[in-house]
């Protein structure tokens, strides 16, 4: 009996198993348990939306492989609201990184973005996001960002946000922005980016430009 044992199946018949088969049975049982566990775990997952709803809502479709919205980062707006880049999907975006206490380049970059906003046809401007993310989350609290919005007269189309040092670095890396803290100041690339409706980088401009034609045509073609 040591090398042979008997198993009664639900059907009521008895079969004999050798020691080797017993091991195989143990193996199989484990796989069965694993399969059941996987099926159970699957059952706990939220039911994916039916394909028709994805077709109706373009934001439910998978992101393109070049979309910056794939980044697992999160921010907080100057209103204290959690903000995900993915919210911007569906409309073109003018985006830069800045910090409110910057007395050199950042005011000029924001002015440049304001000129872009002013030059856009009203309908296009209404469907364009203007986003400022701070390099300096320590100083740029929600209140500081709110004060900056008021001082710069930035309307509701503008999103001002702060995030963890890690998440800001991740975004900066994705956009190819170099920066470095120097005491209370930051040395940084002066770079304004345009994202298309899918969050893909469609245009970047380094430095300052009196002409904003390139931005306008980039926004026009930012499908």
């Amino acid at each position, binding site marked *: 009996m040591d090398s042979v044992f008997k198993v009664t199946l639900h059907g009521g018949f008895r079969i004999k198993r050798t*020691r080797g088969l*017993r*091991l195989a049975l*143990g*193996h199989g049982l*484990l*796989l069965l348990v*694993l399969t059941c566990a996987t099926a159970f775990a699957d059952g706990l997952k939220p039911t994916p939306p039916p394909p028709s709803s994805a077709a109706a809502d373009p934001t439910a479709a998978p992101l393109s*492989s*070049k*979309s*910056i919205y*794939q980044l697992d980062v999160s921010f907080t707006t100057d209103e204290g609201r959690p903000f995900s880049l993915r919210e911007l999907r569906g409309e073109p975006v003018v985006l830069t990184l800045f910090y409110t206490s*910057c007395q*050199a*380049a*950042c005011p000029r970059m924001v002015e440049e973005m304001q000129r872009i906003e002013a030059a856009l046809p009203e309908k296009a401007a209404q469907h364009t996001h203007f986003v400022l993310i701070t390099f300096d989350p320590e100083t740029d609290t929600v209140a500081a960002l709110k004060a900056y919005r008021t001082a710069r007269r930035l309307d509701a189309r503008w999103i001002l946000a702060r995030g963890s040092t890690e998440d800001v*670095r*991740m975004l*900066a*890396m*994705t956009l*190819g*922005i*170099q*920066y*470095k*803290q*120097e*005491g209370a*100041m*930051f*040395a*940084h*690339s*002066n770079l304004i980016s345009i994202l298309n409706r899918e969050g893909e980088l469609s245009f970047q401009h*380094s*430095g*300052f430009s009196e002409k904003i034609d390139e931005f306008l045509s980039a926004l026009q073609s930012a499908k």
Partner: protein
Amino acid sequence: MRLGLLAVSVFSLHVAIFGATGRITASSPAVATTPPPHSFAPGAPAGIPDDAPVIPAGEYRPILRGPKDADVTAVAPFRIARRPVTNIEFLAFVLANPQWRKSRVSPLFAESDYLAHWKGDTVLGPNAPAASPVVYVSWFAARAYTKWKGGRLPSTAEWERADSAGFSQLDSTKDKAFADYVSDWLGHPTPAILPAVGSTPTNALGVQDLQGLIWEWVEDFNSSLVTGESRADNGLDRNLFCGAGSVGSADRSNYPAFMRAAFRSSLKANYCVKNLGFRCAWTLYSK
């Protein structure tokens, strides 16, 4: 007999979850003969490896710094992996995180050379010995790995602090043997197939391979602003950077440090380079 059943059960569990690992060992004979220097459990990130030394609090003197930068930056104590991450360790990460396979990775996070020395998605092949450092990895991939391991990439200051020791002296500037070793390494091209990690001497802080094997990613490599502002006098557009014309040199004799600063400043986060790998670091005390 119960032990036998247990062994088979464990094996079956392994196969059920990590079926592809059989292909790895088949194509990488080094796995069987040379165990990876870091113990790891596929799919189950371990804690901080026991052999990861604690780097005591110290200081970092940036080789390039702006007028507003302090001469010396204090570095809090931290732990750093004794050796860089190996191919086999990175393979465990790729198996557990399929979005980091060569065929699936987003071009945003890794350029086309990502894991170029691997034979396939989950096959190392002859150019990527299991115990050699993983290279051709982007900053994003390196960062994702360290996060998966419950760690992070070292900062520039931390990496330089760990490298501040020589082989026999805590101050590398007083260790001629170390200086000669580094100069000799920098004078040689990267071999087609990299040696195993741990093949270089241990420094006085208990860390290996910081010199003599590969270059390594650091968390804040994009803070090496030596592209525009430090060359402002040569007519490059100073509008490109805020804080222009600010960077000067602290120690013109430290040629390897210049090399590292220049190399870091030339990188972008999705670059994958044949001699650029990484290692994990861990915060010792949270703020």
